[in-house]
């Protein structure tokens, strides 16, 4: 092929690429590059990233300059005669040694940053982060606060029936709250498959391995709301388990913790009160439908039919039609060796009662069974 046309095609390609970049920069969004983040470490990581980037650009420019010069000047159509050389010890030694030196120049600062990142000693606050399909659980080790954090985006937005809002797929019902200016240690684990807790603004990505605990830490400089996602493929709804962290000034954080502890206490009192009460079928069904939609529908599907071969159906199943204690037990204990986890921590006894009632009376499962919180209590603690 004619070289002039080769070059002109190449220039067209280059212009396309550049206009791409220009368009993206033009609109002023930060969706082109890594964010520097909000901790000293994340800023160091950003610095390393940019250093590496410029070194790579420099290498590419040097190598491709030689190559393109050769393509322009040393071509047959211009009458170039091939030279005869095919070895040169000096050149070959130089281009082995020089990259080596560049590598050391990059590796040393990277190693120092890495050693800092892995030093989890002397934390001010410790949070146990537990991943499970497909939600996060946060437990403050020094306080009486723990809760689940699940996707808050409505199904209607995901299914394109509603307009998608600004934080689509990056919003949760209850974010993790941490204080600024304190060393926060995260203990990270999983209840089922491997997840990965990724908060880009803290430069933390750590796998949550079932049966093992990983550690990571951060010290956030700026109050704000920070968003991340699960980074390790963890099954069907891997794309739907975001992470939101709210960093507050220490005083506000302390107030938040006190408030949460009070809420937790009230919830326990309420639970005790509900044990002695009976709810009506209508109340149970409407609460049960809500709980089912938020917790169970991800696997057993909104219509109760499950996913054949992956997640069993509840509609018409023997478990949901006959065996009441078995039905309750699988929810509070889970089913070892399967995806069915224990929900005893995530749901209150009245919520479990409602969802069991719902599952036994929805989608044509017309058993008429009514299950109350005290029935759950009986199974869980063996008392009436």
């Amino acid at each position, binding site marked *: 092929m004619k070289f002039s046309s*080769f070059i002109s095609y190449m220039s067209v390609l280059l212009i396309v*690429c550049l206009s*791409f970049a220009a368009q*993206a920069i033009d609109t002023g969004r930060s*969706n*082109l*590059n*890594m*964010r520097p983040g909000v901790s000293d470490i994340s800023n160091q*990581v950003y610095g*390393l*990233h940019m250093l590496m980037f410029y070194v*790579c650009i420099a290498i590419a420019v040097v190598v491709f300059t*030689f*190559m393109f010069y*050769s*393509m322009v000047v*040393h*071509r*047959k*159509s211009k009458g170039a005669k*091939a030279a005869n050389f*095919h*070895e040169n010890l000096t*050149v*070959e030694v130089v*281009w082995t040694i020089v990259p*080596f030196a560049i*590598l050391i120049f990059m*590796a040393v600062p*990277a190693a120092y940053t*890495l*050693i800092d990142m892995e030093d989890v000693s002397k934390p001010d606050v410790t949070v146990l982060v537990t991943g499970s399909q497909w939600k996060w659980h946060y437990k403050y080790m020094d306080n009486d606060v723990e809760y689940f954090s699940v996707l808050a985006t409505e199904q209607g937005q*995901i*299914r394109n029936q509603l307009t998608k809002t600004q934080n689509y*797929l990056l919003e949760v019902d209850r974010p993790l709250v941490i204080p600024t200016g304190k060393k926060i240690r995260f203990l*990270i684990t999983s209840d*089922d498959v*491997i997840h*990965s807790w990724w908060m*880009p603004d803290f*430069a*933390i*990505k750590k796998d949550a*391995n*079932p*049966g093992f605990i*990983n*550690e990571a830490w951060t010290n956030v400089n700026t109050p704000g709301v920070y968003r*991340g*996602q699960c*980074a390790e*493929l963890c*099954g*069907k709804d*891997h794309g739907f388990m975001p992470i939101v962290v709210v960093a507050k000034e220490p005083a506000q954080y302390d107030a938040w913790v006190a408030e949460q502890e009070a809420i937790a206490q009230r919830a326990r009192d309420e639970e005790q009160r509900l044990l002695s009460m009976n709810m009506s079928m209508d109340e149970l069904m409407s609460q049960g439908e809500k709980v089912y939609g938020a917790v169970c529908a991800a696997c057993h599907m909104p219509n109760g039919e499950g996913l*054949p*071969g*992956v997640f069993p159906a509840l509609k018409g199943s023997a478990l949901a039609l006959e065996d009441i204690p078995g039905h309750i037990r699988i929810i509070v204990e889970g089913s070892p060796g399967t*995806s069915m986890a224990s929900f005893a921590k995530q749901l209150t006894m009245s919520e479990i009662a409602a969802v069991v009632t719902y599952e036994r009376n929805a989608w044509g499962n017309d058993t008429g069974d009514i299950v109350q919180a005290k029935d759950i209590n009986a199974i869980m603690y063996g008392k009436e």
Partner: protein
Amino acid sequence: MVSTTDTTHSGDRDADTQDHVASDHIDDHHHHEAPYGISRWLLTTNHKDIGTLYLWFAFIMFLVGGAMAMVIRAELFQPGLQIVEPNFFNQMTTVHGLIMVFGAVMPAFTGLANWMIPMMIGAPDMALPRMNNWSFWILPFAFLILLSSLFMEGGGPAFGWTFYAPLSTTYSSDSTALFVFSVHIMGISSIMGAINVIVTIFNMRAPGMTYMKMPLFVWTWLITAFLLIAVMPVLAAAVTMVLTDKFFGTSFFDAAGGGDPVLFQHIFWFFGHPEVYIMILPAFGIISQIVPTFSRKKLFGYASMVYATGAIALLSFIVWGHHMFTTGMPVEYEIFFMFATMLVSVPTGVKVFNWVATMWRGSISFEIPMMFAIAFIVLFTIGGLSGLMLAIVPADFQYHDTYFVVAHFHYVLVTGAIFSIMAAVYYWLPKWTGKMFDITLAKWHFWCSLVSVNVLFFPMHFVGLAGMPRRIPDYALQFADFNKWISVGGFAFGLSQLIFLALIIKACRHQGESVSSQVWDGAEGLEWEIPSPAPYHTFETPPIVR
């Protein structure tokens, strides 16, 4: 000495089935007493037939795997769930990866090895022709099993091509058993292919073809074959443990029974990293054949190319941990794997420098294979440089499991491995068919592929850095614009390959101008000394290499 004796044996063996061959008998081999029609292909032990089978199989798998990529890109065209459900989306990403790695790239290289290695070293055939037949013909069954699992209740494998436990054990669908079985068959096929390559190269070189005279494609394949034999059994072990963990109550990867899920990743990546080089070393060999031809100049630094290939192969065994920096490995290991990984860039850099030095003060022309080779050098280098960035552990914490990684490995595998395969096909196709392929179509194929592949993969760097995880069926709104472009690039790249299909079909019908035995002005090597098209049997009398 050894080689002469062995070629005679191999000649005797062939005489059983195919008793007459003449080097002028080139156009039509149906007149043999050899089997006819379908049984010719089923029963063939001829390295050229088997090479053709491998290449067609790889191409079909490339289109099937590509169709799955189209499903993925269609779903990701816009935010929200439109076309497929998340569970099916995961099956598409998983099977796309498995098919492209084991069904497209690896068989394509094996096909090229079958066709070219005997012709490049002056051997009449592969050393073990019947095993050669067997190693090809089990492959279609492996992929039939894998693809049929998609239609099972619960669907096919949905745990990523890396099948991390326990997602692939306790939490997978029952079709996992089929997945395991099909991976076993693929592994057996690869190992047999590798044994054949090694035995052929060790024993059947023409007199005078010393190791340091072998063409680089032969050298890189020899080293690749050793890598295959070393690591395919490790993969077999990994899938077997997944099988017993899922169905027979063992706990290799289950902490509750004393196992460790991270152990799976160590085993998988001990296979997986050499596997990556299995898919790129033959590409280095191809580029090292093509660049000297169209620069009309000897390859610069032949010896250092051989040593660099060996060095890359050895390093591939001590860098697997760089896939696992976020698993919580101790900081000392992270530093070790970071340094070891960065070292890989030294021999790889030597290769790129050698290619540029080969072009330097050459007499360059831009035929189709050279255009693909130049695109390879530029785009593979981009993939190599992003690989260097990924080696830096603190930065890798940010890159890991994002589209930045997807961009990286598609640059080295698509614009790297697959572009090299296309370069090789264009380079040797006239030798195979005796006719020049349709150059206009080839140019369309090249330019459409080159533009679309960059529209497809380059913006993935941006969305990855901005925080988009990989393997998700739906994404936050700030990634929407780039994903639209990526999908458009993906569809265009997919369609561009249909041009290639048309070109290959035309070439197989022997349309086009006849070519000389040398085909390309400047081509050197034994394969260019035999007529075009290459006769059914070549080098029954070994040539003497000076």
